[in-house]
C-alpha cells in the first residue's frame, strides 16, 4: 500500500483529507501538523510516495517550503504537492511554484479533482 504524508496545521483538514484519500485510493496517510513533527519519519521517508504540504504552518513556525527543503535534504524522492489557503500570487506560493517536481493548488480544491491530482502523483 502506498503512503502519503499530509502536513497541515489544521487538524480537521488533515483528518478529512486522510479519510477521503484512504477511502478513494489504496493508500495509507500519515498526518503531521508541523515540520518538526516530520523528524520522527526521517528514517522511513522513502516509504512515502507523495507529500501533501500546506505552506503556512502557523505564524513564526517553519513553513511548508522549509519542510520541502528538509524532505529533499533527507533524500525524499517522491512527489510534493503544495495546497495553500493563500493566493497563488503570494510570494511564498510563487517561490513554491518555482521548485522542481512540485505542483501547487489553492484551497479549496474540488474533491474529485484533488483525488485525481493525488492519483496522478502516485502514478496510478
Amino acid at each position, binding site marked *: 500500500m502506498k503512503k502519503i504524508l499530509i502536513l*497541515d496545521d*489544521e487538524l*480537521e*483538514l488533515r*483528518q*478529512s*483529507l486522510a*479519510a*477521503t484519500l484512504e*477511502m478513494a485510493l489504496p493508500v495509507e496517510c500519515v498526518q503531521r501538523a508541523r515540520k518538526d513533527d516530520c523528524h520522527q519519519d526521517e528514517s522511513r521517508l522513502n516509504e512515502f510516495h507523495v507529500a501533501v504540504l*500546506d*505552506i*503556512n504552518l502557523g*505564524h*513564526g513556525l517553519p*513553513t511548508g517550503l522549509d519542510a520541502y527543503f528538509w524532505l529533499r535534504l533527507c533524500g525524499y524522492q517522491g512527489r510534493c504537492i503544495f*495546497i495553500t*489557503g*493563500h*493566493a497563488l*500570487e*503570494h*510570494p*511564498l506560493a*510563487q517561490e513554491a511554484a518555482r521548485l522542481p517536481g512540485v505542483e501547487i493548488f*489553492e*484551497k*479549496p*480544491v*474540488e*474533491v474529485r479533482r*484533488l483525488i485525481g491530482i493525488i492519483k496522478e502523483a502516485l502514478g496510478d
Partner: protein
Amino acid sequence: MTKAARILRSHNHNLLLGQATLNFLGAAIGLLLSKGAIDFPVLMAAMLVVLGGLLSWGESRSRETVSDSRASACFVLGLLPVYLFVWMLQARDGAAVYGTLWTPFRHHELSVLTVALLAPPVIWMGVACILCFPLLAYIQLQQFPLEVLAHIESRPLVPIVAFSLFALGLYLFRMRWRKIACSAAEREAEVRLMKRFTNSILAIKDLANSPLQAILLDVDLLQKKHPDCAEVAGRIGKSAEKLRDLNKVLNAYRIDPTKGPLSMDSRAELRKKG
C-alpha cells in the same frame, strides 16, 4: 489623519508662522531703515504689524487643523497693518528726501514678494493681497505733493508693477504645486487604503479556505459512507459551493508583488489598524 490633511495642516501652520516672523522682522527693519521721522502714528502702525504677527503666530500654534479659509482670513488680518505701515513709511520718506533723487515704493517691492511666498491658499484672496500693493502705490503717488514728485525718478510705478506681476506668477505657481502635492498625497492614501483592504480580504480568504476545504471533503465522505444522509450532505455541499463561489469573487483582489511584503499571518493582518 490622511497624509493630504497633514500636508495641508503643516502648510497652513507654516504659512502663518512665516507671516508672524516676517511681520516682526518687517516692523523692526522698517523702523530702522526709515529715512523719515518715526513719530507716534508710525510707531502705532508698527505695533499693529506686530499685533498682526502675534495673531498669525497664535493661530499657527493651534493644535487643530487650520482650514484654508481660516488661514487665509488670518493672513489677510495680519497683512492689513502692513499696508498701513508701508503707506506711512512712504509718506514719511517722501517728506524727508527733499532735494535728492528718490525711488519710492521699495518697501512695497519687498512686501509683495513676501506675500507671494506666504499668501493664503484661497486664490482670490492671495491675488487681491498682491494687487493691493501696486494699487496703494498708485493711489499714494497721486497724493504726493509736486515738490516730492519733482524728486522722484521717472515712471516710479514700473518697478512695483513688475514686482507684482512676478509675485503673481510666483504665487500661482506655488498654488499649483500645492494642489499637485495634495492630489499626490491623497492618491497615495487611497492606494495605501486599497492595499490594506486587499490584504484584509486575502487574510479572510486564507482563514476561510482550510475549513471550507475540510467541509467539502467531509460532505464527500458523508455522501459515500452514509447514502441515507445524502440529502443533508447535499445541502451542506451546496452551501459550501456557494462559499467557494464567493471565494472566486474575492479572487478579484490579487496581490501586487511590487507593493511590498505580505504577512503569512492572516490573523495578525486582520488585527492591524489603519
